């Protein structure tokens, strides 16, 4: 094999390998890495396993701010009106009424009680259907612990996200988050206790 041809092969090898190069580090991985010392201190090896499982279960939610954010976008915004429930938290949606006719940016702000701790895994339910999980971590930009110990989780969805779900008939990952009517979103702890709840409306 001539040296030119060998060099061409080496360039091809590098090019093929770089095809698997990711665009960037998923935010959830940064959270997990940031949580490593804390989790180890808590001596909760099971947590790592659950986080891994969670991460996979919530893959659609987190895929690039995506699924979780999408669901949250849609779901959290839906929670704009804190609905009593057994938890002390609330979810506020802005705007609280959505329509596929006019996709807009949606922000859902969930306030969780101080009984929640960093690295806790909370579940998100949408109209009673599981919508994945989320790890509470004050190292992330969208999850902050307040001075009183409570937590604020902020989810945002772009008009593009909303449009994608509308194009799918108002469903995302099997959840009818943008079908006409009133929808309820809940954040629950590991025991199934409702930590926060809220509703939003979708008009035709």
């Amino acid at each position, binding site marked *: 094999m001539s040296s030119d041809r060998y060099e061409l092969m*080496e360039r*091809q*090898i590098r090019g093929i390998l770089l095809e698997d*190069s990711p665009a960037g*580090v998923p935010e959830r991985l940064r959270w997990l*890495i940031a949580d490593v*010392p804390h989790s*180890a*201190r808590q001596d909760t090896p099971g947590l790592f396993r659950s986080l891994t499982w969670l991460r996979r279960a919530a893959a659609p939610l987190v895929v690039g701010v995506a699924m979780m954010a999408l669901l949250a976008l849609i779901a959290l915004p839906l929670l704009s009106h804190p609905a009593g429930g057994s938890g002390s938290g609330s979810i506020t949606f802005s705007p609280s009424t959505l329509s596929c006719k006019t996709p807009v940016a949606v922000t859902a702000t969930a306030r969780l009680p101080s009984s929640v701790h960093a690295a806790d895994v909370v579940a998100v339910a949408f109209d009673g259907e599981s919508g994945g999980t989320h790890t509470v971590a004050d190292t992330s930009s969208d999850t902050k612990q307040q001075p009183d110990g409570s937590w604020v989780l902020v989810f945002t969805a772009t008009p593009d996200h909303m449009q994608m779900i509308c194009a799918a008939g108002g469903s995302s990952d099997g959840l009818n988050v943008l079908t006409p009517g009133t929808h309820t979103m809940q954040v629950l702890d590991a025991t199934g206790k409702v930590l926060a709840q809220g509703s939003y409306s979708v008009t035709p």
Partner: protein
Amino acid sequence: MGEVEGMGPRYSAQSETEREAAFQRLTQARLDRAYRLASILLRDQSEAEDAVHDAAVRAWQRWDDLRDQAAFDAWFDRIVVSCCRDRARRRLPNSINLLDVDPAAPDEPGHLAAERDGLRRALAALDPDHRAVVVLRYVEDLSVPAIATRTGQREGTVKSRLHYALRQLRAAWDAAERTGGSER
């Protein structure tokens, strides 16, 4: 086994807060490179996330072994490579079926596309140990001694594996050229 320079107790005198701060600073700074390396080694970004997380857990458990922060990158890379190889070995029986071949670029000559496909298949068929040295050589542009540090192998072993892997790749490249040539 090649020893990573900079290992040995040094941080034991640090406070827990200092240890954690150093760990966070160094791992987060290295995360992009580590995740890219794992993704290319495993060809699966979900698996790569798990591998990097495993590596971070392992790194924290062994944090007191790191004697010199300047040696962190090589030390952490070595753990990442080890975690990737563990995962790759576990899934090997299935990975052989994942020899996906992407379509040639529209402006790529047919014979070059065939050769590239041949290379892609040969790369995918390499076992984890051989793939690791090829990735470290051609993606990370590392020398044989640096690869030895990151794989925990002797330099002679690295050379041997690199030689074997390139022989396989060259054979695939030549075979694809002959096939492409006969079709031309």
